[in-house]
């Protein structure tokens, strides 16, 4: 049997339950990525029904299809360029009037449309009765009641989709009437388009083009090259402005609502006014002006705790597993033999794969927590509670969550920026996340601080270095906002969806999507780079003769110094000298781009001490010369501080770089972040060291 292939795009307002319908149709067969070139999430899934293979695309949630936000442009371009066979508009049945606004625009684009009246159970509960048949007639599109989170209405919806896909494009007879003045201008522009811009008129619905032109939609205006049309549009808009004393687009929006309320009046009976009673009660507590912030902070603390404390156990398990795998593979070779293959497998591949997979528990747990906050409706409140603070910095309230996660690890933090709808906010947040001192950097601080500072100063030093990161992040955000991400900050208008009980299944789907995406996409690249770094730190090998009289530690030191990384360390010494660093620190810094904690083990190698003692926290009283003693003997406290400062700011680790590439959709942003932060680290450390040296002498 030959399957017929069709594409269905799912459109709808934020909070209309779009995702639950998407999950209902596609189950777990989903693919999450980005729209090419933009940081907007694209979800795709497959659904087999009867003899159809249906590709379902979840468009970004939007209220409208204008060209004012990247999400709306993405949704609109997909509908126009990909020409899906059917567009399903998800309508929150308990809030039809506002939700249908998007539908009016889809009708205007003359798309084959199916309307899913979602959460129809809630609508029924609050006393709404629909005349579905009449509504379908008025909107000229089949209307199907659904309950997404209970998977009700699935077959009906699929039947409607197939029927709509199979039928020929209907020329809708019933149009939204914008009133005589506007209609005259519309007809004028429409005729001109058909006459002068034949190509455009073939690709797009001419009436839709005319509507968009009168609305002064930049995207559509740019498409029109013909002078006659341009002039006519300018004349029409001026004329309309003078008649209505308002922008034509506002008048037209008004007419659309008029059309909607006309359609609703005839077909929807409602007995109860509010759909918010229980939500109101929760809100009274959660957004209370006294309790709001403490509740938020406690919840955030729980999210952090869940991600990193609970995640530690499976993480340790995975680490043990990879240790075991490494040593068992190493055991295949006779004791004492040095084989490149063994080293590649153990130090390159297994260490690399391990380095990728140990993050998985964190990512899964974090996204479970985020899904919980989002699906219940709390996220919208949380965003508002911290928005006043975040807004002063120039970010959206929701940015708080990824930034907080950044203190644990940048990798899940960067993935967490997906909760930000606005692209500019998202990019800005991603760029500064590495300035949050992550867990790996903490190990560096834990090594350095006790080496150079007395007990009394341990706490304040740690606090200071974290604070510097935060302050730098705020400065960077301000700078980015003034330069690269210039533009008005999105004024805060946000819908507060009613609180809802999430389903366990949807939470799991959400969590699994992220985890899988991380493994598949990031995993491969990170593994490649890990192997590359392994090669750089192992080759070229020195002459075995020269190692003969050295003990094991000294031999490792000799080998690292001889390798590409060691040579690079030497090469950059003149550059990092003004920061108070020598080639040994340089070598460790280069190696640490693989993962920040590598800094310690690399430093241990160049100082020919066993890295186990060096990494251990309470090892100051160990009988052998530990790395801390070596550091103390070789550097001043100022250099120690500069090491921490530099490690805090400079190039994020490989995994972070790859995540940034992944999430922003371009190497450009990843490299910008990489070199931007390194430059910043250099400048800041330079100033601190030079000024510090002056004061000290």
């Amino acid at each position: 049997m030959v399957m017929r292939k069709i594409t269905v795009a799912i459109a709808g307002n934020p909070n209309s339950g779009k995702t639950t319908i998407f999950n209902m149709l596609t189950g777990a067969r989903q693919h999450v990525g980005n729209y090419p070139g933009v940081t907007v999430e694209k979800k795709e899934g497959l659904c087999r029904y009867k003899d159809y293979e249906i590709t379902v695309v979840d468009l970004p949630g939007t209220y409208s299809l204008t060209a004012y936000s990247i999400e709306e442009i993405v949704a609109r371009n997909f509908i126009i360029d990909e020409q899906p066979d059917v567009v399903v508009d998800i309508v929150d049945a308990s809030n039809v009037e506002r939700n249908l606004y998007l539908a009016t625009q889809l009708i205007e684009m003359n798309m084959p449309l199916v309307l899913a009246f979602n959460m129809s159970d809630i609508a029924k509960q609050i006393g709404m009765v629909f005349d579905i048949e009449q509504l379908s007639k008025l909107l000229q599109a089949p209307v199907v009641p659904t309950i997404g989170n209970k998977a009700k209405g699935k077959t009906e919806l699929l039947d409607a989709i197939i029927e709509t896909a199979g039928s020929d494009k209907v020329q809708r007879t019933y149009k939204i009437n914008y009133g005589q003045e506007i209609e005259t201008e519309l007809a004028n522009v429409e005729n001109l388009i058909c006459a002068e811009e034949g190509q455009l008129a073939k690709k797009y619905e001419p009436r839709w083009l005319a509507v968009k032109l009168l609305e002064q939609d930049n995207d559509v205006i740019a498409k029109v090259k013909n002078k006659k049309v341009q002039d006519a549009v300018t004349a029409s808009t001026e004329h309309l402005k003078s008649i209505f004393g308002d922008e034509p687009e506002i008048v037209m929006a008004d007419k659309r609502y008029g059309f909607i309320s006309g359609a609703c009046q005839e077909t929807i009976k409602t007995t109860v006014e509010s759909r918010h009673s229980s939500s109101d009660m929760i809100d009274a507590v959660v957004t209370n002006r006294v309790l709001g912030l403490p509740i938020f902070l406690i919840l955030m603390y729980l999210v952090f705790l869940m991600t990193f404390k609970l995640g530690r156990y499976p993480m340790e398990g995975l680490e043990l597993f990879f240790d075991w795998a490494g040593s068992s593979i190493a055991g295949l070779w006779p004791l004492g033999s040095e084989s490149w293959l063994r080293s590649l497998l153990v130090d390159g591949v297994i260490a690399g794969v391990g380095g990728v997979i140990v993050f998985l528990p964190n990512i899964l747990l974090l996204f479970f927590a985020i899904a919980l906050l989002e699906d219940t409706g709390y996220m919208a409140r949380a965003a508002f509670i911290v928005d006043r603070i975040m807004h002063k910095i120039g970010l959206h309230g929701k940015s708080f969550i990824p930034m907080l996660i950044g203190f644990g690890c940048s990798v899940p933090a960067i993935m967490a920026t997906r909760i930000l709808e606005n692209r500019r906010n998202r990019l800005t947040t991603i760029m500064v996340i590495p300035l949050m001192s992550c867990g790996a950097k903490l190990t560096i601080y834990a090594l350095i601080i006790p080496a150079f500072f007395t007990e009394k100063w341990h706490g304040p030093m740690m606090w200071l270095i974290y604070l510097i990161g935060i302050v730098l992040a705020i400065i960077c955000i301000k700078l980015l906002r003034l330069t690269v991400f210039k533009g008005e900050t999105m004024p805060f208008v946000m819908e507060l969806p009613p609180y809802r009980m999430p389903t366990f299944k949807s939470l799991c789907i959400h969590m699994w999507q992220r985890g899988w995406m991380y493994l598949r996409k990031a995993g491969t690249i990170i593994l490649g780079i890990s192997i590359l770094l392994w090669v750089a730190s192992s080759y070229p090998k020195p002459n075995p003769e020269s190692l003969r009289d050295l003990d094991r530690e000294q031999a490792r030191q000799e080998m690292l110094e001889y390798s590409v990384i060691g040579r690079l360390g030497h090469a950059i010494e003149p550059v990092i000298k003004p920061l108070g660093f020598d080639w040994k620190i340089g070598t460790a810094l280069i190696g640490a781009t693989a993962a920040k904690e590598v800094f310690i083990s690399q430093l241990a190698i160049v100082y020919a001490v066993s890295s186990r003692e060096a990494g251990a926290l309470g090892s100051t009283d160990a009988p052998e010369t530990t790395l801390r003693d070596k550091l103390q003997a070789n550097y001043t406290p100022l250099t120690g501080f500069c090491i921490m400062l530099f490690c805090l700011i400079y190039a994020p680790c490989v995994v972070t770089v790859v995540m940034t590439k992944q999430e922003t959709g371009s190497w450009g942003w990843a490299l910008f972040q990489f070199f931007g932060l390194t430059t910043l680290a250099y400048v800041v450390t330079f100033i601190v060291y030079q000024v510090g040296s002056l004061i000290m002498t």
Partner: protein
Amino acid sequence: MEQKQTRLLSAVRAGETVKIVSVQAGRGLNSRLASMGLMSKVQITVVNNSHPGPFVISVKGSKMMLGRGMAHKIMVV
């Protein structure tokens, strides 16, 4: 009947229901607000207006939070 003064939305107390007279924002914002149902002639109810704290309104059956800045740009009667 309607002899109430036009005032800023931010000055409306919680519990009051008012009608939007005009939205004085830029073109882009104006139409974005319109797509969310906030435009002239629309009835809204102020749900929460506590300082400091969220400014919450109810419009066409949905609750929405506005930034304080936003509330200064909307004239109501």
